[in-house]
C-alpha cells in the first residue's frame, strides 16, 4: 500500500512535511482518520491534536483552527498554528 504525502502548512511556514501511513485530525464534526486511497475529502478543523503515523513512529502536533484536504495519496492541513508535541 502506498504512503500518504502529508503537509502541515501555517501562515508562517510549512510546519511539517513527510510521508505517513495514517493521519488523524480533529474535524469540526468529530475526529477523523485518513488512510491511503481515501476518497477526496475537505473539512474544517478545530483546534486539537493531529496524529501522524510515519516511518519513524507516531508524531503528535498541537494545531490551531483551519481546514484539511485529503486526497487519495495526500493530506494537506492548513492551520493557524502548529507545534509538535515531543
Amino acid at each position, binding site marked *: 500500500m502506498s504512503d500518504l504525502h502529508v*503537509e502541515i*502548512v*501555517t*501562515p*508562517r*511556514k*510549512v510546519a511539517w512535511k513527510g510521508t505517513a501511513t495514517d493521519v488523524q485530525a480533529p*474535524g*469540526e*464534526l468529530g475526529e477523523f482518520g485518513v488512510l491511503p486511497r481515501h*476518497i*477526496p*475529502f*475537505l*473539512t*474544517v478543523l478545530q483546534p486539537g491534536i493531529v496524529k501522524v503515523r510515519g516511518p519513524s513512529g507516531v508524531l503528535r502536533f498541537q494545531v490551531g483552527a*483551519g*481546514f484539511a*484536504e485529503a486526497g487519495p495519496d495526500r493530506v*494537506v492541513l*492548513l492551520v493557524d498554528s502548529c507545534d509538535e508535541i515531543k
Partner: protein
Amino acid sequence: MATLRDIRTRIASVKNTRQITSAMKMVSAAKLRRATESATSARPYQQTLTQTLRRVAAGAGEVEHPLLTSRDVVKNVLVIVVTSDRGLCGGFNGTLNRRTEDFVKKHRAEGHVVTMRTYGRKSKDFFKSRGFSTATARTDLVRAMFADESAALAATLTADFEAGVFDEAWIAFNQFKSTLNQIPTFNRVLPLSIETAGAVENTGPSADYVYEPSGETLLGALLPMYLRTLLLQSFLETEAGEQAARMTAMDNATRNASDLISALTLEYNRGRQAAITKELIEIVSGAEAL
C-alpha cells in the same frame, strides 16, 4: 570662489554622508533577506488556500455568500493604505500615497463617501495633512504582530461590512515584484472575488470531493481565512518592498556621494596646485627683483 579649506570641509562632510548611506544600505540588505524569507514562506499557505477556495466555489456552483455579494448601490467606500513607518526609501511611500489620493478622488467624483484606514506613519501623515481622520491609523507594526493584526483587521472589516458601515473595501499596498520593482497595487478585499476560471482543469476530480460540513458552510469558514491571508500578504510584501526600496535608494545615494567626492577632490587638487604655482612665481619674481 571656495577656498581650499571650504572644499576640504565639504569633502569630509560628503564622506560622512556616504558612510551613513552605505551603512543603511547594508542594514536594509540584511533586513530584506529576512523579509523576503518570511514573505516566501507564507506563500504555500496562501496558494493552497486559494486553490481550495476556487475548487469549493467552482464545485458549489452559484453560491450566495454575504462576503461575496456586491452591493447594488455603492455609497461608502473604505480604503486601506499600507506604507512603511520610515522614509529614506526613494519613492516607495510617496508614489503609493499619491496614487491612493488619485484613487480616492476618482471615487469621490463618482459620489462615493470615502473613509481611510492607514498603516504606517508615512501614509498617516500624508492623509492627515489632507484632512482625513486618522483615528484608526496604525503605526509601528513589526513582523511578529502581522498575523494578529491581519486577523483583527479581517474581523473588523467583516463585521463593518456586514453591518453596512461600508459597501466596498480596497487595500492599497506596494506589491513586491523584485528588489528593483515594487508596484502600487489596489485590490478589492470586500466583497471578495474569487476567480473560478481556470480552477476546473487543474483540479481533476473536483466533483467527487466530499465536503464536511456542506460546501456552503465550508465556504463560510474558508472566506474569512482567505481575507486574513490577503491582508497578511499585503503587510509582508510592504515590509519586503520597503527594505528593497531603501536598499536601492541608499545604493544610489552612496554612488552619488562617491561621484561628488571625486569631483570635489579634483577641484581641491587643482586649487592646491594653483596655490603652489602662485607661491613659486612670487618667490622667483622676488629673487629676480634683487
